[in-house]
């Protein structure tokens, strides 16, 4: 489904070029859950943006290929990009507080992808939006539909974002640290939500986080990034129980003890 081949991302805007991502390659099959972990500044977000086709600025140089069903996203035209985004791929990111338009009702924002990609009637859109809000756990959907973002909590907004990103049934969902701004219980709920979606509709999930624990809860395979490069990749279980790279070991060691045991027991 998705094949990233020797991707380099080079910033050229400030005098000397700066490489944010180096020789990154990985494959993703339909319905897979892949996690990308790494410390701050390791290039996770840049990778995600490139895959989402959002890194189209001229001053950012991209080398290599990102193949979506065999076609290179990096050479997509604007039209093709708009077709791809929202319909084939959905993405959410860290800031649920600001990712929703403050002056638009939740319902309108939920329906936006449908208006762009589908030829639905108003009523069909409404029904889809309500169903989708229910699916992401906003059970009071009819009320939420008519609310504005500032009336919702962070967790609810992130649910709305997930719902809006998934409403056209994309094959891939990119989640860039979707839970960092949320408290722990809400974090778990969001993870459950993504997992459920993956199980039920075979939506592939590319989950990005600096939190190893979350990644091992959700993902089957994991990619560890450091300074723009992949230092280790493999099955989540194997990487966590027997890390081969120094950097991964350090990352694992930095998880607080209690949490680690909890995670271990889940694996065993």
């Amino acid at each position, binding site marked *: 489904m998705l094949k990233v081949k020797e991707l380099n991302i080079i910033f050229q805007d400030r005098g000397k070029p700066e490489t944010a991502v180096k020789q990154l390659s990985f494959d993703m099959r339909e319905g897979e859950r892949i996690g990308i972990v790494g410390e701050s500044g390791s290039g996770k977000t840049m990778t995600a943006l490139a895959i*989402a086709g*959002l890194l189209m600025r001229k001053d950012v140089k991209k080398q290599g290929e990102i193949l979506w069903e065999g076609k290179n996203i990096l050479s997509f035209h*604007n039209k093709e990009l*708009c*077709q*791809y*985004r*929202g*319909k084939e791929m*959905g*993405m959410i*990111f860290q*800031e649920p507080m*600001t*990712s*929703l*338009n*403050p*002056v*638009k009702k939740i319902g309108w*924002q939920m329906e*936006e*992808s449908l208006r*762009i*990609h589908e030829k639905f009637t108003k009523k069909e859109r409404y029904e889809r939006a309500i169903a989708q809000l229910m699916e992401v756990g906003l059970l009071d959907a009819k009320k939420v539909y008519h609310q504005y973002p500032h009336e919702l909590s962070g967790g609810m907004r992130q649910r709305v*974002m997930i719902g*809006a*990103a998934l409403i056209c049934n994309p094959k891939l969902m990119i989640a860039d640290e979707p839970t960092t701004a949320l408290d722990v219980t809400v974090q778990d709920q969001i993870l459950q939500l993504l997992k459920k979606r993956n199980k039920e509709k075979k939506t592939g999930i590319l989950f990005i986080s600096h939190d190893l624990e979350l990644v091992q809860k959700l993902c089957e395979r994991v990619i560890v990034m450091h300074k723009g490069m992949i230092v280790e990749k493999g099955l989540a279980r194997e990487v966590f129980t027997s890390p081969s790279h120094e950097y991964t070991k350090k990352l694992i060691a930095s998880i607080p003890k209690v949490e680690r045991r909890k995670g271990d027991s889940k694996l065993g």
Partner: protein
Amino acid sequence: MRKEKKRSFLLGASILIVLFCFVLSSFFYMPYDPNQMDNANKFAGVSFAHWMGCDNFGRDIYSRILQGTRTTFLVAFFTIIIGGGIGTAVGAITGYFGGWIDEILMRLNDAVAAFPNFLLALVVISLIGPGTFNVIMALGIVFIPGFARIARGEFLRCRNMDYVKSAKLMGAGPFRIIIFHIFPNTIPVLLSAVTIGFNNAVIAEAGMSFLGIGVQPPDASLGRMLSEAQAYLFSTPSYAFFPGMVVVLLVLGFSLLGNGLERKA
């Protein structure tokens, strides 16, 4: 502070609503034909029959003020539609896309904005001739750069917002983003620009009609009336006083309204 803004907004709004009601009422009831001359009533003072008096041709000043305010509103309204509409569109495109489009359009904008507003309107009028319609065109053109600048700033501010990124990720194209996603967020700021623009349009129309290049006789406009009244400033002060009052109230109303809107944004 907030309360003050609110009070300013309410006061401005009420002044304008009252004026607007007067203008509206004139469509149903106008005491006299505003252009009807009457030799017997030349310079008539304030009375029950003509409660703002009559002018040098014996025309009823109250009726002429209603007619004139109508014209002034009309000119201001269409000026804003033209100037605000085109200006916002230009600003939206340059602000959102940036790059060479921005470079070219904003240079052009600066060139136009370099001339004082009123002077530029005079130049345009001298090219296309006087008259109500031409005043609207001239002022509309003159107002474009101001609106463009404000709109550009707003779109520049908004284009890197997360919700714009979300919209892109849903597959929205640039024009969809500009119109449906960013524009609603710029309305508060644009609205306060509109009130200021209205004000300037009222003053500019009055000024141009005063100079005799705006609304042409015998039609009434507030500026024209002031211009005609100045010869009789001492003999018949009511002639200049009432239209002058209305201009002051209009300007005050829009200023207060704009003031109240400004910080709310």
